[in-house]
């Protein structure tokens, strides 16, 4: 069966520090991968999506970047965190079309202090 792993679950980082969040998917090949941020009162904001290795599309210009070094690995990074980067970060995957929606990871709650 397919599973998605996302870590860490909670992270507190100082302003200006770097960030690396990792997401891996098991049990499927060539998934579409997504990074979302969820802030209170703002819903789910799509940050990046990827349809294959090395292919990254950015939805919102910001302080963050994403990479897909392997088929089932998706990484969200920042060189210097801002206070506004605080939020709940979710990785998700889908295969082919979205007939069955996305499957989300358990999320990382990032607090930038």
């Amino acid at each position: 069966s397919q599973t998605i792993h996302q870590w860490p679950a909670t992270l507190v980082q100082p302003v200006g520090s770097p960030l690396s969040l990792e997401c891996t998917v098991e049990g499927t090949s060539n998934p579409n991968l997504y990074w979302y941020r969820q802030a209170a009162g703002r819903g789910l904001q799509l940050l990046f999506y990827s349809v294959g290795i090395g292919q990254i599309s950015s939805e919102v210009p910001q302080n963050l970047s994403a990479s897909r070094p392997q088929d089932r690995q998706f990484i969200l990074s920042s060189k210097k965190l801002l206070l506004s980067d605080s939020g709940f970060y979710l990785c998700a995957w889908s295969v082919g079309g979205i007939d069955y929606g996305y499957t989300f990871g358990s999320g990382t709650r990032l607090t930038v202090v």
Partner: protein
Amino acid sequence: QKEVEQDPGPLSVPEGAIVSLNCTYSNSAFQYFMWYRQYSRKGPELLMYTYSSGNKEDGRFTAQVDKSSKYISLFIRDSQPSDSATYLCAMGRNNRLAFGKGNQVVVIP
């Protein structure tokens, strides 16, 4: 106008009541309609999905889509405290989903 509108106001109901949630959308190109349930500090999980106008039932849950009015609804019958969560509507086209802001539902025992 946002693609998907969902009133995020919290909703409190007594156990056993019917919960009614809805979303409106502006893009008539949406082909897929879904509801996600999200417990506190967890990722959303897919609850219901449908492609066409009409009703779809799954146990105590009914999803309703009205494409002519660009309106979707989720009904939860005989609500239980375990239904307390945030419910997000989502609509898709071209392999992309647009989400509503989510409705927080609290079922009071």
